[in-house]
């Protein structure tokens, strides 16, 4: 029998803001952007949730519901620092930590119980340390598998602590709505409701053959989940697979010049992160979403791995042009680099092109300036003009 913990931080970004800015404590904090911008809520504090604000809600709507809220653009680097500290605590109790995002993770503590006591005790220990060391709160679910642990952690947020004991899986799931099942979105939920299924308990009473007839392969999977069966292992985080950035534009536009500016600035961010982590990558992926929410992603493989925005930008722009970007107004642009390797391993080139060496030196210098004086200390003329609005 495995002992799996799912740990999920409570209103992570908002809680960090409230901790770093005591004046926000007790106030509805909404992280995602300024109230009249076009983004969506990324996290909001429990005070804000009382007003009906939730994550993924458009910021305008959040503002309508909660006009006196504290709207913040978010400080990703700060959140990542805290996330790293959090993961470090988790890894002290088991090497089998699988982060799902920056504020949630699965832990397989089956083998750790002999060292630290039962899973319940380990979870208590972790939650206490998070409160003491990070001044943040978390909810946990403890169960024999990942699915149950995740459902459990979500049940009594914030500061939830729910244990599903072996043998109690079916009873635990029975009263819950079918939408709690993994892989049940609005569409499948509607399908299931048509079959007269409201709760997971309803599903448990049907036969697997019947579900397979109506839903095919998915039906069988849902049936297993409904009985609380899930043998997916907890797989520790792999090395970074890709580094990317994307942005939703403040207005949809087909202005090529402007879009190129945005692409360049995204490429610059990606390149800077690559260099900071000592990585180079060969696969460049471009993502474009148009005004009708039609999304395309296109990728290309370079003959030589890179960490330079010049190369990333040129490649991404060539992909964009091949796909006639701007034919319809563009809503979102994204650039990412994958096929990563450490910059000090791999193929050595025969020709050191002067242009490449110049680029390397240029970026070394610019990176040093930014490290010392901040990201805005030095920037491209092209990007300055863009921020100024009209040319």
């Amino acid at each position, binding site marked *: 029998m495995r002992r799996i913990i799912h740990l999920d931080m409570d209103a992570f970004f908002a809680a960090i803001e409230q901790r770093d800015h005591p004046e926000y404590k007790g106030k509805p904090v909404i992280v995602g952007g300024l109230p009249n911008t076009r983004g969506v809520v990324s996290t909001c504090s429990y005070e804000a949730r009382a007003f009906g604000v939730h994550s993924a809600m458009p910021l305008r709507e959040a503002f309508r519901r909660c006009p006196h809220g504290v709207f913040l653009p978010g400080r990703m680097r700060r959140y990542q620092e805290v996330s790293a500290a959090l993961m470090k605590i988790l890894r002290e109790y088991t090497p089998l930590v699988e982060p799902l995002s920056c504020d949630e993770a699965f832990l397989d503590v089956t083998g750790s119980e002999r060292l630290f006591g039962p899973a319940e005790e380990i979870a208590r220990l972790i939650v206490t340390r998070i409160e003491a060391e990070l001044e943040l709160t978390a909810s946990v679910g403890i169960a024999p598998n990942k699915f149950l642990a995740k459902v459990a952690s979500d049940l009594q947020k914030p500061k939830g602590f729910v244990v599903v004991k072996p043998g109690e899986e079916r009873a635990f799931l029975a009263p819950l709505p079918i939408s709690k099942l993994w892989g049940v979105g609005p569409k499948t939920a509607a399908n299931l409701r048509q079959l007269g299924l409201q709760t997971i308990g309803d599903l448990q009473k049907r036969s697997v053959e019947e579900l397979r007839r109506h839903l095919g392969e998915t039906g069988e999977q849902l049936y297993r989940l409904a009985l609380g069966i899930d043998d997916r292992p907890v797989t520790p985080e792999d090395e970074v697979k890709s580094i990317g950035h994307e942005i939703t534009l403040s207005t949809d536009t087909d202005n090529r010049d402007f879009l190129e500016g945005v692409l360049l600035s995204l490429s610059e961010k990606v390149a800077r992160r690559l260099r900071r982590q000592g990585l180079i990558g060969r696969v460049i992926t471009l993502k474009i979403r148009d005004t009708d929410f039609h999304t395309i992603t296109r990728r290309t493989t370079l*003959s*030589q791995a890179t960490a330079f925005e010049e190369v990333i930008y040129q490649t991404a722009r060539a992909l964009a042009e091949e796909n006639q970007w701007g034919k319809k107004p563009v809503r979102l642009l994204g650039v990412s680099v994958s096929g990563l390797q450490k910059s000090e391993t791999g193929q*050595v080139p025969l020709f050191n092109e002067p242009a490449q060496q110049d680029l390397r030196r240029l970026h070394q210098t610019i990176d040093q300036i930014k490290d010392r004086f901040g990201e805005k200390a030095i920037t491209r003329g092209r990007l300055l003009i863009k921020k100024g609005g009209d040319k």
Partner: protein
Amino acid sequence: MKLLCSQEELLRSLQLAVRVIPTKTTMPILNGLLLETRNDQLFCLGSDLEIGIEVQVPEVTIITPGRVVVAGRTLYDIIRHLPAGRIEMGLDQDNNTFKINTAQTKFELNTFPAEEYPVLPEGIRTIRLVREDKTKVSEHTLFTLPAAAFSTAVKQSIYATAPNDSRPFLSSVLWELKEGKLRLVATDINRLVIKDLPVMGEFEEEFLVPVKSLKEMAAIFGDDQEDEIHFLLLNRQLYATSRGVVFYTRLINAQFPRYEQVIPVEFDGQIQCDRTSILTALTRSSLVDSAVKLSLSPDCLNIYAMSPDLGQFSEDLNCSYQDESFEIGFNVFYLMDFLKVIEPDRQVIFNLSKGMKASVLKVEGSEDYTYVIMPLRLNY
């Protein structure tokens, strides 16, 4: 225009001509082939503006001369599906359709206006003049090569290029002509090939030929032991002609790096081994990973590959090495590329360097083929 021809001969000619028709073009007329009669001969021309071809169709009887542009791939497909034997073709002046008739079948194709077909490059006309008066050949010809030798040279150089790279020196091959020798130089930035061919001629020239054109050239002229290819350079276009075929390509205007500088002259160790034994060993190694480690020690070459996901591979080969032991990493496919295009029974020489320096591979007993290759940094 009206003529009689043989299905087999026409098909063979069209097969060559359709190769240059672009797959995507903003100029629809380039999807056409130009059929033109001249001096009682039929010529078939195609181009994508970068490369082009003129093929003389053998065994044709011209009844009335003329010029017409018809959809190239369609024409080729039609001829391909006609029975062997005689075909009668002609332009119907009244409704501008092109008729293709055999005893039982009749095709009537729409045509493009022939006067809108792009003007043929100057060189095609020069070559026609040369052809008509054989004595002038030497005046314009850069050099002549046996088709088989040319085909081998292309095969031995083209793999070390990066045809889709935006940097011109990686997507083309340098042709250096001097002292009775044609030298092809190709690189994809990680490795470099130098291939020398003896040629007749006094010219000194240097130019870059796009990889794609070179591939076409090798395919069009094949490796017929009998054939000779004449090369001409006219107005920054390279022409290659053999029998009734003229192929031309634009050249790339760019600087090729000073490649002589990257060829090392001193090495840390030399091994000689049988081409086929080492190729088969490296092929086995490539099943595990694209990185390979060569470890040299007295009388032994060890080939090792390791992949965290798959497992590992190791093989010992006998070799005549006597110096101190050292290791070097390579992309195994880079080594295989070189070995694959060498005759099976030859011996190969690896001149290896320690550290992050280039190594040089050659065929034993021959100085006309040099492969310069950079190592792979390995962390095992």
